[in-house]
């Protein structure tokens, strides 16, 4: 059985339906991306899985249904979510942000802090600074580092490349790749930048107005010029 199994996932903001019934799964240790243009509903998938919008259908994480659960309880089950727009606490220091990531844990917080600084040395140099004073790229690193402090069993990333310099985005994905290889991390990624995402994940779905237009191995999608041109535009 997969770590995350989703069947017929639907979500709506009031009368506006955003997701029209999605089926997918993420296996333990697998990295899966949902690609697609702005407004296709990518962010809504993650928000629906985290109890941040009303969702219908079936979504089971490690055999436990997520539908109807509160956000905090879902996080406590081991779902780390790096939200759209990063959601860092601007007036708190870098270290306080990271410590909050380990809020539900007790042991080894100190080690995990050092581990996060090892992955993202720029955060270590700025540990006493207010998070709001960091650049966009550094804030994204902080958001990722903070989610990893939870020691998540599933890491959900919402457009980590959004609004940061291409070279910084590339570096971020490189570090993410290392972390995942090292820890066999399970990832559900939502990303508009298909090129970056496809180099990072094993499997991808392309979302178009609330439905998957196609799904497949990342390498296959990358190699298919037709698909790239018509769906991913690069």
């Amino acid at each position, binding site marked *: 059985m997969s770590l995350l199994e989703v069947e017929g996932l639907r979500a709506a903001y009031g009368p506006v339906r955003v997701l029209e019934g999605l089926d997918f799964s993420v296996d333990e240790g697998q990295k899966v991306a949902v690609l697609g243009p702005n407004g296709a509903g990518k962010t809504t998938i993650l928000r629906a899985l*985290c109890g941040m919008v009303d969702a219908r259908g079936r979504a089971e994480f490690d055999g436990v249904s997520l539908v109807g659960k509160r956000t905090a309880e879902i*996080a406590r089950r081991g779902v780390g979510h790096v939200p759209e727009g990063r959601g860092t*606490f*601007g007036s*708190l220091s870098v270290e306080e942000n990271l*410590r*909050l990531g380990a*809020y539900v844990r007790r042991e080894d917080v100190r080690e995990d802090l050092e581990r996060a600084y090892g992955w993202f040395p720029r955060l270590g140099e700025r540990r006493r600074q207010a998070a709001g004073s960091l650049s966009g790229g550094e804030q994204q690193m902080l958001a990722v580092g903070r*989610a990893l402090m939870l020691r998540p069993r599933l890491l959900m990333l919402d457009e980590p490349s959004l609004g940061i310099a291409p070279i910084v985005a590339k570096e971020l994905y490189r570090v993410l790749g290392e972390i995942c290889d090292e820890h066999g991390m399970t990832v559900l990624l939502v990303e508009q930048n298909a090129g970056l995402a496809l180099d990072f994940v094993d499997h991808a779905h392309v979302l178009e107005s609330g439905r998957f237009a196609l799904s497949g191995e990342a390498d296959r999608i990358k190699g298919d010029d037709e698909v790239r041109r018509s769906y991913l535009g690069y």
Partner: protein
Amino acid sequence: MDGIATGSIYAAVALALVLIFRSTGIVNFAQGEMAMFSTFVAWALYEAGVPLGLAVLSTLVLSFVAGMAIERALIRHFEGGEPLTLVIVTLGMFILLNGLAGWIWGFENRGFPSLFSDDAVTVGGVRLSVESLGIVAVLLAVVGLLFLLFQRTKIGLAMRAAALNPESSALLGVRVGTMLMLGWGLAAALGALAGVLVAPRLFLDVNLMGSVLIYAFAAAALGGFDSALGAVVGGWVIGVSENLAGTYVDFIGADLKILVPLGIIFVVLLVRPAGLFGTREVARA
């Protein structure tokens, strides 16, 4: 010193206002009446034969629990809605608690015993009452404890985070509702403390906190509604200026001194709307 002591009481109520404002973004107009009600509870316990110290302590605990209950049962339903709705809800609570206290304990004045002796000590040639010193000491201790709570503990950090960004906090497993309840509980206990400190100086009746709340508002406005340090400094400034103006400016006297905080609120809002220590809100277009 007397001004500082009175100011410390204003500061305590102002701190309670700031606590709730920071965590929920609302101004709790019922803060004073909650404190008055708590003071009556302490008085009733004392009258029933409970030693004063124990009566006050149990009142603080009861107020903490009641504050949490109010948040959970009442305020929770209106959170994230129109600010005006919450203003009306807290005003409603103001009237309800005032009436309820009158209905239970009557509307007459009652004496409330002081926690401190009525002796005075001489420090460096200045006579200071033990009560004034005690009040200031209690306030400083409370401020120290709150500082430790918010700056040094995990739960305090989570409370700050929940106030800053509830959604992000929930994603990290912080139960935001619980944090808000704790904030209300702390504010209620703080208010209760201010009530039992001020009651011996005034008389205990249902309007005990009426003027204190206005002074506390002035203190919070002066210091900045989102700054704990500002609340304390603001409280002292208001307490001292009220005292000095009442004593030394002839035409003000005891009757007009309530105008002092109102004047201060007015000037601060004109000159520095965010208060002395408040953060100005900057919104991107």
